[in-house]
């Protein structure tokens, strides 16, 4: 079974600064997807960014980017120019790829990192 570990229960950043959230995972599969979800106080789960394991290029979405190190099984999220609206719980998640031979498309989440943005 796959596991996802987020070693930082809480992080804080000053507005306009950059912060990096860490995530490591364990899997025996060679093809999979990794995600970062944001959960603000409203508790809505919002997809921030996605990375396909077969792609070497790191995904970027505006101020959000990832550092994907497949060999190290590491998937960190960098938030640049942090804004007050970025304050939320951030979850790292893993999903098997369709060609992994199974029907197991569920998301496996880490425990989350609570990000505080200070004005």
């Amino acid at each position, binding site marked *: 079974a796959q596991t996802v570990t987020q070693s930082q229960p809480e992080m804080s950043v000053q507005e306009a600064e950059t912060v990096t959230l860490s995530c490591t995972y364990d899997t025996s599969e060679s093809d999979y*997807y990794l995600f970062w979800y944001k959960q603000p106080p*409203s*508790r*809505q*789960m*919002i*997809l921030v960014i*996605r990375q*396909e394991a077969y792609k070497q290029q790191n995904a970027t979405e505006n101020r959000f980017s990832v550092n994907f190190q497949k060999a190290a099984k590491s998937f960190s999220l960098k938030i640049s120019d942090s804004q007050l609206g970025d304050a939320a719980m951030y*979850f790292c998640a893993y999903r098997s*790829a*369709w*060609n992994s031979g199974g*029907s*197991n*498309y*569920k*998301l*496996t*989440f*880490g*425990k*989350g990192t609570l990000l505080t943005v200070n004005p």
Partner: protein
Amino acid sequence: AAGVIQSPRHLIKEKRETATLKCYPIPRHDTVYWYQQGPGQDPQFLISFYEKMQSDKGSIPDRFSAQQFSDYHSELNMSSLELGDSALYFCASSVPPARLAGKYEQYFGPGTRLTVT
């Protein structure tokens, strides 16, 4: 754009009562996932359906059952409720991976907050 609809948004039940949570996926999405998020916890996968058939099962108690109907909406039935069932229950929908060669997203609904007293 249409999103995943969950009803009710809030539900208060007493111990040993029964609850039914409903999920209406995004139009043309035929895959539905249920997740349970306890207080201060990460979401845990319960069960999923594809084309009205159960496709995967996680840590779902035997007291819970679920199904997907012909219009693709899904219902999670919870009986003999316990205090520990108090949680936020998310439904997510997607198109099946094969249709998009694996590139698909799970779109989450706003959740149903269940409180068991």
